[in-house]
């Protein structure tokens, strides 16, 4: 069990019409590892996340979670076997309170959402889990606040609280720092660090290099839909192919 990688991609490719969006992407992420995904805009980072989470189905290759082939599984099925993700644009439910947002996530994990007629109470399991997750990200004082009025940084924290409530094994974070004010960055980094330290496997797309390099064990570099390199931050920065991709190729 333990030696099976938490996430494994084999020759994953995506072709839409004549366009090659992703090509032959192969890599593994070990349980408890934190891997950053970088690359210029349009390199295929979000597509990669969409394929791992099931929003898109690849035209070739396989995606495995803890050794199980989930290539053709639907989004909610993957979520149930322990995959959680956030989206590039903040995607909390603005009209729901912060508490309700997390409760929804907890309900999904605890199975409370399966009975349409359950009346939630403040002291039931889902509410308790929701409260604990809000405390973990430092938003306990905002339980009754409508998510739409939270600051951008708090919305990002709320997303992570929702993620924790679903108790995922593997977490995909799509640009968690995007649009977050500089004052919120440190707090958010700490939340992500704790998420990782609690034993979760984390895959994170992030343009904020300083933050990324300080957090991750390895960095995967995407370029033109291909995996250019995957290595420790230091080795990746020294890689000449990566430098070319970022600084422009000489003709």
């Amino acid at each position: 069990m333990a030696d099976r990688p938490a996430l494994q991609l084999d020759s994953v490719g995506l072709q839409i019409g004549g366009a090659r969006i992703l090509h032959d992407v192969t890599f593994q992420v070990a349980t408890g590892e934190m891997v950053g995904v970088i690359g210029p805009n349009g390199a295929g980072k979000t597509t990669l996340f969409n394929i791992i989470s099931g929003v898109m189905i690849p035209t070739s290759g396989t995606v495995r979670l803890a050794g199980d082939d989930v290539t053709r599984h639907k989004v909610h099925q993957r979520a149930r076997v322990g995959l959680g993700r956030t989206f590039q644009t903040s995607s909390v439910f603005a009209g729901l309170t912060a508490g309700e947002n997390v409760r929804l996530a907890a309900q999904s994990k605890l199975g409370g959402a399966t009975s349409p007629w359950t009346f939630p109470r403040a002291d039931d399991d889902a509410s308790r889990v929701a409260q604990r997750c809000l405390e973990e990200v430092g938003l306990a004082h905002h339980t009754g606040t409508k998510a739409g009025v939270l600051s951008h940084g708090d919305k990002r924290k709320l997303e992570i609280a929702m993620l924790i409530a679903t108790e995922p094994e593997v977490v995909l974070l799509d640009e968690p720092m995007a649009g977050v004010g500089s004052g919120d960055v440190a707090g958010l980094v700490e939340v992500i660090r704790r998420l990782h330290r609690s034993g979760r496997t984390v895959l994170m797309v992030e343009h904020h290099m300083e933050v990324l390099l300080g957090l991750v064990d390895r960095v995967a570099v995407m370029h033109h839909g291909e995996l250019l390199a995957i290595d420790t931050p230091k080795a990746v920065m020294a890689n000449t192919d990566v430098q070319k991709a970022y600084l422009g190729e000489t003709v």
Partner: protein
Amino acid sequence: MSTILLLLITGIGLGALYFLVASGLSLIYGLMGVLNFAHGSFLTLAGFLGWEVGRRVGDGSWAGLLTGMLVGLVVGAVVAALTELVFIRPLYNRHIEQVLVTVGLGLASVALFEGIWGTDPIQIRLPEWLGGTTNVLGANIPNDRWLLIATAVVVLGLIVLFLQRTSYGLVIRAGVENRTMVTALGIDVRRAFTIVFAIGGAAAGLGGVLASVYYGQVGAHQGTSLLIYAFIVTVIGGLGSLTGAAIASVLVAVIQQFANFYLGGTGDLAIVLALAAVLLVRPTGLMGKVKH
């Protein structure tokens, strides 16, 4: 003064009828992005079956009418849920095809109803009290309006209770905002679709029986004509908003009544103009949210 009061209360009564149809339309669109053109068929079928059962229990009696309403509610819910399961679900995420299927169902079902019950509306018998009036500050209000208003208020209350206070209501409210994120949390929203269809169908079914009370007849085209007003109400209220649908129902019906009375029967024109005005000023409707 008494004329204004009469127009106002009868307008609210008509609005109650619009709301019963529009509430389901709005919820279904909000959650699934499907404009359900078959919604009128749920209403018509429920109206016919409610009447058929009701008159056998007691033609023109309260027992008959209340049984009819119950039958209409159940028929509406079951037919709507079946429509979702059989026709809408296989076309998951193909909105154009889903809408086309509902258009087809709407057209075919009217032809079917005409085949069974004939093309002419059938006059129905109602409890005597409903045919009378109640004097309110000098205005003689037709009693059937009270039944319409009371039913719509109860339905609105029950749907709000379901949405705000139950676990599944939370799933539906979240799904109306962002369906992708709900699935990402591990929730199979397709079940929510069936439930929303059933709730909308139940409300429309009740509306079908009450439409026959309002018009004093049941007919194969009842659903189709009410559906047009319900669509206008749904758009003005904001697609996906239940409160919006409730407010817009009353607004549209009252404007319609007043224009019909004071501006020489121009009620329909007035609400189309109101629709245009709302779309120009607030394209998402009164209570509509911007989808993301």
